[in-house]
């Protein structure tokens, strides 16, 4: 990635690390066909078919899904572009013996300005929590050519 396309803030991998540090212990696991397990944290949109976990994976417990591309809103800026990035994160609790209460509180403590929208479980859906994490960065404007 060229310097001009670098945003002055954490990249996707750093965001993932930060979030896993925050609530990784609360997450469930993906169970791969081989029987191996991975933390149930999925980043969508990496390419064709990457919008969800492979169909032959199983999920146990709580899953977190992060949208790969944040929504960017310009906040103005002189000599640079100041942008608010909003990362969209969704938790789904597939285990009826668990709740998203702890994760909700962990998110609130770490990101008090995040928008949190809990959705209780219904007869047809699992409990969900949608979170929008704000993150302000500066970006280099397009250069004249």
């Amino acid at each position, binding site marked *: 990635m060229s310097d001009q396309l670098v945003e*002055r803030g954490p990249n996707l991998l750093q965001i993932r690390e930060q979030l896993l540090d925050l609530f990784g212990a609360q997450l469930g696991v993906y169970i791969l066909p081989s029987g191996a397990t991975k933390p149930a944290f999925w980043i969508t949109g990496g390419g064709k078919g990457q919008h969800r976990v492979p169909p032959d994976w199983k999920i146990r417990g709580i899953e977190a899904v992060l949208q790969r591309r944040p929504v960017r809103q310009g906040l*103005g800026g002189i000599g640079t572009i100041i942008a608010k990035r909003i990362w969209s994160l969704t938790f789904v609790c597939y285990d009826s013996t668990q709740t998203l209460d702890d994760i909700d509180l962990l998110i609130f403590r770490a990101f008090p300005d995040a928008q949190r929208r809990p959705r209780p479980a219904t007869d047809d859906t699992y409990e969900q929590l949608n979170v929008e994490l704000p993150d302000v960065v500066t970006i280099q404007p397009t250069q004249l050519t």
Partner: protein
Amino acid sequence: MADFAIGGSIHKANRSLLRMVIPTLPNRYFATRDGAGMITLPTLATGQAYIEMQGITKCGFKVDDREEEFRLFGDDGWFDSVTTASKLSASCESFFMKNIEVPGGSTVPEIRGDYSEDFAIVERSRYDKDYEVYFEILKEMGRAQGSTGNFIYDFAGFNGVIRGYNDPSASESLTKITFDVNSRGRPVFGRYDAGATPLSIGAIQSTQLATAASSGTRRWATSPVDNASAVAVSAAITVTYTIDGTAALTQLALPPTGGGGFRLENASSGIQILAGVALASNVVTITPAASLPAATILRLRVADGAIQQSVDASNNASANGVRKSLQGFSTTFRTA
């Protein structure tokens, strides 16, 4: 590609370049303006470079002309006037900006515990009331012949002092600060021809040079070595900078503020042990004022910027370059 974007006839603020230089008092910088209104930039002193102001959300300036009115007899009663004094006043709004550096060999910026290069200048005005800064504001206007020709900028340049720093810090919002700039001396306005290459605007200002103990081209070695034990209480403490573990790193200097970035302290209490700091070639020697305490774990903290290197635009050592900070580190050892 030419700048034919919709609305391109109106200048957009993000396509401005605000930059500063810290002159060595009592010198000031002045651009010159020719009869056609074209600007020649001042020649910066060796070791000085422009620092971009980034994170600025407002920067308005106005020219305050003081006029004295008078009337001449026989002029049918019409007023006339003369400008008796003039100054430029700027009012800026910015965010409290943290330092971001791109480590050597990486394209991923990292935030380090320091002010950004530009904000460090602004914050210094909080206590240093006679701290003059040379400001330039350049607005992109495009190429001289549309899609070809040199890149032309509107130019305003002036020396000034930062006044009225204000940090309201409202809870649950971004930390914004405001400050004013009052000019000293004559501001210069006009058009600046940057030549065939446009000025870079908004790039990451990575002014810190990465260091490591045993890799890269800026290495440090300490004596005593890290985790050494049974170190004599009279032992000399040194930090040696090299390019490969052997050959000396050149063009090093302590910053203008001195050797305070090299801090020797008790590792458990953090209490500082008074010591002198001296640089000779590529070796920094830390000389405690008294014998070191016995059977104690000590830590040498070398802060970011505790030592600087003069480098050219490619970050190669250069006597005529600009000073950049070397990345810091810390090491511990135990006395006998």
